[in-house]
């Protein structure tokens, strides 16, 4: 039974990381109803930002974090203006394929500029081992987890208690009605997208000490992020955090009991099951998925 503390700690930390990645996605998906296939690529860009800052100027990733927020916010605004604005009201196909094109382009920009070599970021925090009642982890993971929770709750607070947040939620519920109420939905979408991209960029910076950095790094996270988002319900911040914990738990426990070979099967099957029986997510509003998303 000595494995339990370790499994628990792993689940919680992993869940935090997944939540951070998913939180941006749930915002974009929830408010704009756009399936953004390029989400993983912004994560990858965040990782490269951390890597190059660390390698060229010796800057700690957690310092870069502060810089990453405005940088990715700006990138989000730019991408919105160039790419996303035109497809918000287009058919799903157009949205999907626009973001797929974006994804391909970004992956290969990274490949051409920085080659396909696997890079590492090794700040001093990665070597600091933290022991929590029989379980071990390192400082980088704990920081990633803490920041993830911070961001999630910050976003939650933003959505719930600020005017802008209310406006966004209104637009998410019914875009036409929102326009009728005088809300400039274009600005709402732009803000949502920019915040979402800022989140995932920050996620990239935070996880750069934990995984390797390479042009197709985003791929491994994108599908996972979608599983989390669907589980947690669209646009639901806390749902994303809880969904992330569930997925992390399945991964960790599934690996331990069944062997890691089948863990993805387990959560994909869970994903499909949730889509069939409770498609609005375990925490989402029933019927949301059938209302012509």
């Amino acid at each position, binding site marked *: 039974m000595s*494995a339990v503390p370790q499994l628990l700690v792993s689940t919680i930390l992993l869940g935090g990381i997944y939540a951070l990645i998913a939180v941006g996605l749930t915002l974009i998906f929830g408010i704009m109803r756009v399936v953004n296939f390029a989400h993983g690529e912004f994560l990858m860009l965040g990782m490269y930002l951390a890597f190059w800052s660390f390698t060229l100027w010796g800057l700690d990733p957690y310092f870069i974090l502060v810089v990453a927020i405005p940088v990715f916010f700006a990138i989000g605004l730019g991408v919105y203006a160039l790419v996303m604005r035109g497809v918000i009201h287009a058919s799903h196909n157009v949205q999907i394929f626009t973001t797929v094109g974006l994804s391909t382009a970004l992956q290969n920009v990274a490949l051409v500029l920085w*080659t396909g070599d696997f890079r590492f970021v090794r700040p001093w925090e990665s070597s600091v081992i933290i022991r929590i009642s029989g379980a071990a982890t390192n400082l980088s993971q704990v920081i990633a987890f803490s920041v993830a929770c911070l961001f999630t709750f910050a976003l939650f607070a933003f959505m719930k208690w600020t005017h802008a947040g209310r406006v966004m939620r209104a637009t998410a519920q019914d875009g036409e009605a929102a326009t009728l109420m005088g809300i400039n939905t274009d600005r709402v979408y732009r803000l949502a997208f920019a915040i979402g991209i800022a989140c995932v960029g920050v996620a990239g910076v935070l996880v750069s000490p934990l995984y390797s950095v390479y042009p197709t790094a985003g791929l491994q996270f994108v599908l996972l992020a979608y599983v989390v988002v669907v589980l947690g319900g669209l646009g639901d911040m806390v749902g994303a955090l809880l969904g992330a914990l569930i997925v992390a738990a399945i991964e*960790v426990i599934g*690996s331990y009991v069944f062997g890691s070979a089948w863990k993805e099967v387990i959560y994909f099957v869970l994903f499909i099951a949730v889509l069939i029986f409770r498609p609005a997510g375990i925490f989402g509003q029933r019927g949301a998925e059938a209302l012509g998303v």
Partner: protein
Amino acid sequence: MRRRHVALSAVIAVIALTFVSLPFVRSTEGQALQGEYKIGLLEPLTGPLAFEGKRHLDGYEVMRDLINAQGGVMGKKLVFVVGDATDPTAAASEANRLITREGVKIITGTYSSTLCGAASEAASRQNVIYWESSCVDPRFNKRGLKNVFRTEIDATGFGWYNVEFIAKHLAPRFNLQPNQIKVAFLAEDSSYGQGVTEAARLRAKNDFGMQEVALEYYAFASTNDFSPIIAKFKQLNPDVVHHIARSSDAVLFWRQSKEQNFQFKALVHAGATGYGSIDFGKALGADGNGPFVLAEPGPGLRLESFRPEARKLEQDFSEAIKKRTGDEPLASHRLAGSGLWLLKLVLDQSKTDELEKFRASVLALDMPVGSMLNGWGVKFAENGQNSNERVQHYMLQWQQGRMMTVWPEEFTTGRAKWIPLGAWDQRK
């Protein structure tokens, strides 16, 4: 009426133009210029395997320059035409292009097992020689194709050597009989990981009666936490961890094992990826001391144990690679280089690329271990595979951030340390 015809014609013209652009895809004038001999080179230059494909390409080009400095191939200058084999469809398509547009009679490459299958199929259907230097799919030479040759041993060979090392070199130093050794098999689940692991498992069980306590496959790209596996392994208490890793999973597993104080006597890996990659040393430095890697030789190799012509080739090759990449040659460079060198030897013998004579020359080659780059010998079997015994492989070990060549001891100055691996902070 007229306008509709105009419009229809416009559409047809656009489509036809796109269609017709294909023949104007770049190609040189049919055959090579006088005094040049052209072969096709297929590598993954884009996509997930790109970084290794590029190293392969570097190795090929460096060796080509060395060969040309020594008079080239069949008296002519060796030139490459390169194709990008991103995926199996592209591999087959590029192979076709190199054969039909560029007129090559020999294709070499291709780094990955999944690409070499498709590419060699395409080559066989057009009776073109396929000279593989790196892919390790065991079935590659079992298709009865007369034009397909491989200079490197297959995955089963790696598994074979690993178990050999564990049984003959490690077991005695643990004071254990081979059949008392408990092995935990851990591997990434690509064709490489599966191929090597299954071969190792088979030999461990059948030849030595080793006890297999665990078998875990994982998807390296989406595995970001080994804690559940480590927790399980800790309870099973293996002596040796046979881990075939792909890239950062090696660093992750090693680091997490240290964090969670997972003790084992040795870790053995095979190949240029994962523990065999310089990234492992870059990421962990001295913290990475200990793992064994079956790979092409590096520092600690006793060049004196090679024959003189092999020594010179080694030195020239290493220097050229250092000049080009700034680092010691890596496994991918070496595999490419030795593959190409062997091709040169065959062509110089046969003086033609005509299949029958080429094949005869291939089968006639017979050189002992220590004759070439990497200390390889050469002896091809009927099915076109260079034999396990001649393709000498070496066990390297991470010591102070470098991979030292430590086994077999008659070829190395380096010696294996920390057998068994002691406590994590004791390995200096």
